[in-house]
């Protein structure tokens, strides 16, 4: 069993990854609550943004500009999808809406593999500008990308929470999430509110895409299906509370990372998001049953 000293660097790594999980979770929950769509193409959109950023950087464009393009692209792509496919599916079950985003994910995955093939020994990697700036805390080297990942996760959650509560658009979004019909009747421009939610989700997917491309790998398939791990945090929050998403995301990231130095469990570390989400769902389910029973039915 490794010592606490041995665990520390893994803690750092886990916090960074957890920050991105939280960021992705928040992005998905805000959209889900405003539109009823669980955007399973979140990872694919971010991945494509990251690949475009890579392409631009490779072509000589300034990297910060490339990051902006990535985020902008992801935002626009998500918005376009929301505007085109949101209305026809608006009255359908959330399940159907989520399945539709799977369609988008598959299209993007195929397109990414066509445009950026993985033939031969050609390998792509995205190294964010913040990777090279490092500092040391008690013998552990931390780079700014990791700090940003965690910080973004926290900041986005707090800002989003505040924004939802205190701004006009945020309140409108909460109203739409609560009851779309009545909100529309009250004169709130529902479509515009939903568009804002789509846009916001897109921005976050671009940010998450960049960070994951740096922290994990710049690979279309990996990043696309990493959304399932990101989803785990949102699932634990029952697709409702962004505060819980933040905590869940960080816990998942940290646990996943801390399992790695334990020899007998190291290969199962990747399972962490799924196991934690599964357990959380089961707890929810059992709690519900207790509630029903206690009502004396």
């Amino acid at each position, binding site marked *: 069993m490794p010592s606490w000293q041995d665990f520390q660097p893994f803690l750092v790594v886990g916090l960074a990854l957890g920050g991105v999980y939280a960021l992705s979770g928040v992005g998905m929950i805000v959209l889900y609550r405003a539109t009823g769509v*669980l955007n399973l193409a979140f990872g694919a959109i971010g991945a494509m943004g990251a690949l475009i950023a890579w392409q631009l950087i490779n072509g000589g464009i300034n990297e910060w500009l490339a990051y902006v393009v990535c985020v902008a692209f992801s935002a626009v792509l998500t918005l376009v999808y929301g505007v085109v*496919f949101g209305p*026809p*599916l608006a009255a*359908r*079950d*959330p*399940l*159907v809406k*989520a*399945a*539709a985003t*799977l*369609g*988008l*994910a*598959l*299209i*993007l*995955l*195929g*397109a990414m*593999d*066509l445009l950026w093939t993985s033939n031969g020994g050609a390998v792509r990697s995205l190294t964010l500008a913040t990777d090279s700036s490092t500092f040391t805390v008690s013998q552990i080297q931390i780079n700014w990308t990791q700090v940003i990942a965690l910080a973004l996760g926290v900041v986005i959650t707090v800002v989003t929470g505040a924004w939802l509560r205190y701004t006009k658009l945020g309140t409108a979004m909460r109203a739409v999430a609560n009851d779309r019909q009545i909100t529309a009747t009250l004169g709130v421009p529902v479509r515009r509110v939903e568009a804002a939610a789509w846009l916001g989700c897109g921005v976050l997917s671009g940010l998450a895409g960049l960070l994951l491309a740096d922290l994990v790998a710049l690979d279309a*398939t990996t990043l696309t*299906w990493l959304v*399932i*791990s990101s*989803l*785990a945090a949102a*699932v634990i929050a029952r*697709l409702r509370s962004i505060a819980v998403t933040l905590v869940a995301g960080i816990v998942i990231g940290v646990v996943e990372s801390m399992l790695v130095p334990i020899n007998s469990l190291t*290969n*199962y570390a*990747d*399972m962490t*998001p*799924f*196991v934690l*989400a*599964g357990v959380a*769902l*089961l707890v*929810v*389910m*059992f709690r*519900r*049953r207790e509630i029903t029973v206690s009502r004396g039915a």
Partner: protein
Amino acid sequence: MGIGEGGHGGQAPGAGQVAGVEEARDAGQALRPSSEGAARGPVFAISRVRPETWVRVAAVTAVLAFALFAVPVILSLYYVDAMTQVAIYSIVALGLGVLVGRVGLYSLGQAAVLALGAWTAARLLFATSLPFPVVLLAAGAITMVLGTVIGLPALRLSGLYLALITLMLAGAITVVLSTVNFPNGGHGFLGYNGNLIHIPPIRRPSLAGSDAAYYRYAVVVAALMFLLVLWHVRTRPGRAWAAIRQSEPAALAAGINTTRYKLWAWALASFVTGVAGGLLAGSAHFLYSIDFPIQNSITLLAVVLVAGAFSLWGAIVAGLLLQLLPALFQNWGVSSDWITILFGVGVLQVLTTAPRGLADQVPKDLRRLGRLLSGATRRAAPSRTGTT
């Protein structure tokens, strides 16, 4: 074969409105044993069989005969191998179709269930000398038990959450499989020996060793699985499922034990998928965990939606899309990425315009085309009266 007189067709869950209480009550009444009136006796009372059923039976027999006898002769061995996979994945699509199309339960983890079935079959084939059909049944049974055990708590969740938990489970199973690997003739519970230089192939049934013979074997097993599901659909479970899909509260109100029938659907889907896994083990000879990535589960759902989750023909179309199309594309030198894109576009198209999928849409379109044509011919002929 548009099976489903028992309820409204494969509308995606929740799409229809609640109005089905009356229907649910009727279905519920039909489910109560020995009530008054027409007993829904055995399906095959010849005297009450309609002519269209005979047409359907003839069509199915023709297709089956073609598949069994003509296909291995006409096609090269490359395509016969592809068709074996078509048969296997048709069974998997069949299982998923029961869940999605009949009961309205979206499972995003069927590929993982297939992997479990394949694992079980491989383990048994290496560890025992049981005859192949027995191994298939055992793999199906064990997978069914596992599916039921998993399904029991999960079924209390609804719709999206159920889909998500199946996705999480599939993710977990994928990771476990890549760590423990598939049996390769080694000893111990896992049956995996990483040091082997010469890995023994998984055996096939004694009378179906060659590729063409194994293809026929797979087709026969697939036909049996289809019959099994057809039997379910035509009798009490089918009607219960229709009621549940129409409106679960209404079905409950009508006295249907929704948990039991949902679990039954899980069990059936797991069973057939487990059998398909056994067939896969025999066809592949060697199993690797990289062949069961999480993406397969997603693609499977996408294709089942596109091909038609409700109709049994849809399952066959799904099998063709999943296995024949890539083989064709590879032969033509077209990248399989286009297939992924095609499936994605298909899902979007289907969900926004044709909820019942290709298998339902194509005959509809053909019928519409037929009506158009006959309408045109009628207009061309001079009308006797003044009315049009």
